[in-house]
């Protein structure tokens, strides 16, 4: 099947976000795909506040079944989240569980004024009441497959379908 061009979606998202940015805006990307996307958007939008990067491994709701995933990255949020209008960036929105974990982690850093969710692709299949405020494209994904973002050596982003690991 034909997947949308991630590079085009990035530009489209940046254009959509640009007029919405205010003095209190700040961006946080979720490892790994969301961090790549956030790095790109942060640059395209020329944002003043530094970029935050988050690994939600310590807030996952499947820890008791899955244990800790290997090499969790260190969350680094180089600004005070309190009072900020946060753009939370992930590559693919699916069940909503990652976003739930990310919001829980964020509130351990402070009380943001608002959080908006930015995703490159929404594949449906939500298990929690979560939706994206900014979405590059809706993508139908066949059962048993995983949609994810890849980054080539030259930095080019692309969407890819892989066999799903567990489900």
């Amino acid at each position, binding site marked *: 099947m034909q997947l949308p061009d991630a590079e085009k979606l990035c530009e489209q998202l940046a254009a959509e976000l640009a007029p919405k940015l205010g003095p209190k805006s700040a961006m946080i990307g979720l490892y790994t795909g969301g961090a790549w996307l956030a790095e790109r958007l942060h640059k395209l939008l020329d944002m003043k506040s530094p970029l935050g990067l988050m*690994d939600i*491994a*310590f*807030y996952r709701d499947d*820890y*008791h079944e*899955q*244990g*800790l995933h*290997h*090499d*969790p*990255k*260190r*969350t*680094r949020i180089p600004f005070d989240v309190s009072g900020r209008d946060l753009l939370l960036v992930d590559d693919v929105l699916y069940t909503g569980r990652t976003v739930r974990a990310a919001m*829980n*982690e964020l509130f*351990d*850093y*402070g009380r943001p004024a608002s959080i908006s969710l930015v995703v490159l692709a929404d594949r449906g299949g939500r298990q929690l009441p979560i939706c994206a405020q900014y979405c590059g494209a809706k993508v139908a994904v066949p059962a048993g497959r995983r949609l994810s973002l890849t980054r080539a050596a030259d930095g080019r982003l692309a969407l890819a379908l892989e066999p799903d690991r567990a489900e």
Partner: protein
Amino acid sequence: MQSNPQLNAKGELQHLLSIEGLPREIVTQILDTAESFAGVTEREVKKVPLLRGKSVFNLFFEPSTRTRTTFEIAAKRLSADVINLNIAASSQTKGESLLDTVANLSAMQADIFVVRHEASGAPYLVARHVKPHEHVINAGDGRHAHPTQGLLDLYTIRHFKKDFRGLTVAIVGDVLHSRVARSLIHGLTTLGAPEVRVIGPQTLVPTGVAALGVHVFHDMREGLKGCDVVVMLRLQNERMRGALLPSAQEYFKNYGLTLEKLSVAKPDAIVMHPGPMNRGVEIDSSVADGPHSVILPQVTFGIAVRMAVMSIVAGN
């Protein structure tokens, strides 16, 4: 794989009993995970919900303040419930066996046992008898091992020196009675530190230690030459009463770390100590409080390392 009592059938860490025999990937996994937890301990809210609803029992059959406290802080920062048992003052004095104590605590729905015991191998015995969902962490057994101390030492070295390749590490003092030294030597070997030295008087260096791949020195200045990392060991006062050492003054003269002796190490050498320190016996205050000392960061890192170990074993 199954012969290693620390690993489950999938080769994952089930209990932490010793660094000896741990695959390099697991040691690295612990250090990497600790790195992420170090970020948590710098936040306003120093807690994550990972072990919510789990119970951690600190079983200390031997007195300890620092290790017990850092395990307690680590467990609390993972949102676990912590129960401290100072067994020296409880059932054991009434004659209950170690396994009976563990069976009773297990009946109280334990998830993790942190065990310190004066007998080498005691945590292995416990690990063999706990239920499959229960995990055992060795917090120091006899002269055998103190793996979380060894891991926090490795973490500290990696933090300041970035890479183990090319490092010269000296471990100084009472190696004979030190479970800390043994754990660190195994860890350094596993991670590929090319030159590990042991420095101490003949009476305090075990005869077989060279078989672990270390170089033995009895002259401190010679041993410290060109070192990147100097790990001082605590000289236990009780050793002084036996025939092993003449006196504290004599020991300090030969093996106490002073700025003058340290001057032959690399200019950017770091000095570590597992604590508690005997100032004026194995280390001079000018060094302990000086620019080379990373003794207090070690304590802070110890919390992140113990959070990593608990969250990895409890998830496997």
